[in-house]
């Protein structure tokens, strides 16, 4: 660390030092006053940052007690060295008060919304938590919505977020460990896990990777994700992120570890496996049969999103004999007069769709309508009528576009979409043969990935039969007796065998 000077005993010396540390910022408010607390009237200075500390609370919990306490308890005078301790213990009515002896922590406390109380003659100061700044209220999740299930989502405030999780798991075994990452931003990063379920080695690994981050700024969970992920050069996410407290609660109860980052409503979950990106929180709230069918549908959607344009290109340009005759004739009829090869046609439409999608996210809300009219009418209808694109290609692109959104996690859906383009290229050059080589390569790649030591394709590769009950189908909750074995083997049993319906 750089030089970390201690506080001096002179009041103005300290005040000046702190002011200088903050570069004479104009939002640093200084309140000089005298207080008789401790028996003798002394000069004191209260410092805080406008907007971070709450004015009303400062009045009520710091100034009022200091002004009203004229004498010490028992009429005895408190010696100067004990005064901060006395103030902390007997005068200040605020909840979080601590003594600080150095300049740097005091400055840190200031910018974290603490008020700093300097006392003339004391070589230490008190930091009093007055933090209360404007924040977004807890609202509905915008990206991971469900029909049945809690409708709360995380906010940008890490304390609100941890509280949301604690409100779901009311158990002292839920452990929260805090640290600051980012030399400049000093972002609060917390890991949360359930003691006795989370795997110790995984926990150590997470801590090690977090401690190795040496960067200026952590502005969002994405920064952390890229620093701690196992494999950088892959399309597929090995760290899950969610904005739902219930998902985090379920994950840490399975033995996974949550990483909360201040300033973002996205919480990271590790280890993250391939199959988890195809599971939605709702799978556990809906009836088991319904959610099993929906999961199967999602896997189906995954294959459609990744492969259908490629299969279309391969079949129509290499393997026409695979099509039923009637279908071949009607596809051939649609292609009459289309100037581009099927591959170029598909690339044009897929690229157009991706542009539309990206524009849809970035554009100002007010121009939304204009863009969607241009998108649907001009590109969809006119392209077919003008004979540039065949109608069947529009159908293929539409079904793929829609299918990619049945994948609940956006990271996975985007990975699948990029994979689709690779497959299209392979299909255009090598037909079915290319697609199968590509599939094989993809499977090898996915199997080679690890997420915090856990094989990415688990529990399918390596296969664990015990864990199959919550992969493609979800068995009803009474059947989910054991936690998934790939995360932790500490405390495998979730529930004892239930003893009949009437609880006898």
């Amino acid at each position: 660390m750089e030089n970390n000077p201690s506080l001096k005993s002179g009041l103005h010396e300290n005040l000046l030092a702190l002011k200088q540390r903050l570069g004479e910022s104009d939002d640093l408010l200084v309140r000089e006053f005298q207080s008789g607390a401790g028996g003798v009237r002394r000069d004191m200075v209260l410092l805080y940052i406008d907007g971070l500390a709450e004015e009303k609370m400062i009045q009520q919990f710091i100034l009022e007690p200091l002004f009203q306490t004229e004498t010490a308890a028992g009429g005895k005078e408190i010696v100067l060295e004990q005064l901060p301790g006395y103030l902390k213990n007997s005068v200040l009515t605020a909840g979080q008060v601590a003594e600080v002896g150095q300049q740097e922590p005091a400055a840190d406390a200031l910018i974290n919304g603490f008020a700093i109380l300097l006392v003339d003659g004391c070589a230490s100061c008190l930091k009093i938590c007055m933090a209360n700044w404007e924040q977004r209220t807890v609202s509905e999740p915008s990206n991971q919505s469900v029909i049945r299930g809690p409708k709360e989502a995380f906010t940008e405030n890490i304390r609100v977020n941890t509280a949301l999780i604690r409100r779901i798991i009311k158990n002292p075994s839920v452990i929260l460990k805090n640290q600051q990452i980012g030399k400049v931003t000093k972002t609060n990063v917390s890991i949360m896990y359930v003691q006795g379920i989370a795997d110790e080695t995984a926990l150590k690994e997470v801590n090690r990777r977090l401690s190795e981050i040496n960067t200026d700024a952590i502005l969002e969970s994405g920064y952390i994700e890229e620093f701690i992920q196992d494999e950088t050069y892959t399309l597929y996410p090995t760290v899950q992120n969610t904005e739902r407290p219930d998902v985090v609660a379920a994950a840490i109860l399975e033995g996974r570890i949550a990483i909360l980052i201040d300033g973002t409503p996205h919480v990271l979950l590790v280890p993250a496996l391939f199959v988890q990106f195809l599971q939605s929180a709702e799978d556990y709230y809906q009836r088991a049969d319904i959610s099993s069918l929906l999961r199967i549908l999602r896997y189906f959607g995954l294959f459609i999103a990744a492969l259908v344009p490629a299969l279309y290109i391969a079949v129509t340009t290499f393997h026409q004999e695979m099509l039923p005759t009637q279908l071949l004739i009607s596809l051939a009829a649609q292609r009459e007069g289309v100037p581009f090869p099927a591959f170029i046609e598909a690339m044009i439409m897929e690229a157009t769709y991706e542009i539309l999608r990206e524009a849809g996210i970035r554009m100002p809300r007010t121009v939304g309508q204009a863009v969607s009219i241009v998108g649907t009418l001009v590109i969809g209808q006119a392209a077919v009528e003008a004979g540039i694109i065949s109608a069947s290609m529009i159908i293929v692109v539409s079904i793929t576009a829609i299918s990619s959104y049945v994948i609940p996690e956006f990271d996975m859906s985007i990975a699948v979409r990029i994979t689709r383009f690779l497959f299209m290229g392979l299909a255009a050059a090598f037909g079915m043969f290319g697609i199968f080589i590509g599939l094989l390569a993809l499977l090898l790649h996915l199997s080679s990935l690890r997420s915090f030591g856990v094989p990415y394709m688990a529990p399918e590769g390596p296969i664990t039969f015990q864990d199959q009950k919550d992969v493609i189908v979800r068995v009803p909750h009474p059947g989910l007796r054991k936690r998934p074995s790939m995360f932790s083997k500490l405390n495998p049993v979730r529930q004892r065998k239930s003893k009949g319906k009437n609880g006898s």
Partner: protein
Amino acid sequence: MAANMTFKRIPILLSVLILMLPLTGCWDRREMNELAISLGMGIDRVGKKYVVTVQVVNPSQIAGQKGSGSNESPVRTYTAEGPTVYEAIRKMTIASPRKIYAAHLRVLIFGEGMARQGIGKSIDLLSRDYELRTDFFLLVARGTTAAHALNILTPLERIPANKLYRSIETSEKAWAPVTTVTLDEFVNDIVSKGKNPVISGIRLTGTEDGGSSTDNIKTTRPAIQLENNGLAVFRKDKLVGWLSEMESKGYNYIINNVTSTVGHVSCPNGGNLALEVVRADSKMKGTVKEGRPHLSVELRVEENVGEVECSIDLTKVRSIQELEKRAEERLTRIIRRSLDAGQKKYKSDFFGFGNAVHRSNPGYWKAVQKDWDERFEDAVIDVKVNVKIKRTGTVTNSFMEDKEE
């Protein structure tokens, strides 16, 4: 030093290899609008040359947007001749803007003249070429050329080749005299010494010409039509004659190729009664007794009463039994007629009794397989028919019966 140099060259070599990969790409890539999708092919013979006719689909006329008012024909035929079938097909590109694509071939038609000369050599290409599937039907154009048959436009199914395919397929399931033969079945029959091939025939009905104009399909009753007609009997790969409707029926009963059909029997008191076959199961057996082949056909049929046009009391068990007896007699007659055609008229075992003998007595078969067709001529054939009448429909006796009482 030299070794070092080689190591340095490895990345270059690798990238050259990877860059060579795309060079092979797309070598058999064909867009769908570069294909002349041919669903029907016909082979005739003129002198020493093959005349090959191909019926190519005009996709925009078949599946184009509705209401495209042009009157183009839904198909186009190309004809070319050459000393081999392959050459003739390739030669078609001088007239056709697209290369003939035959993977979706539905029917292969032989002119009768060609079939009488032998068709074995001409189908080698079709079974050898990787592009073709072997599941298309073979047909013989009775009394005309394949080229002529392929030039007829048909209503309803706008692609004539598809019409032939569909009608023979439906007919086989609902009408006993029709049978389908695919290329691989035909080849199997030619290769096997115990069965001669049979191919379905098609016939043109109506006036002689005008079938190739779209005018032909604009009326309710086209001037010239294509229909399935009888079976062509082959000895090896040469056509030797045709089976009548009744003989064809018998043939299908014998080879166990009847799914459902309708036949009739005469009632004890005159008039006819139609019986619907709902299930037919036959067994062909061939044994050797005293050095002579001894063949048998066992047929078990389940029937329903379909139509009553005579006075008979169907509520009586006795009359049902009577009907069963009559149906058995009639089926035996049909089968006998068919067997006679094979044994006497065409001297050809197109039923496959030879294969049955082969299975039961391989040693004997080895000795006789060369002149099996002659042995077949004077073989003894037992015919056993068992008919069960199961149901009489939604009424018992004819309502005409009630009226008379």
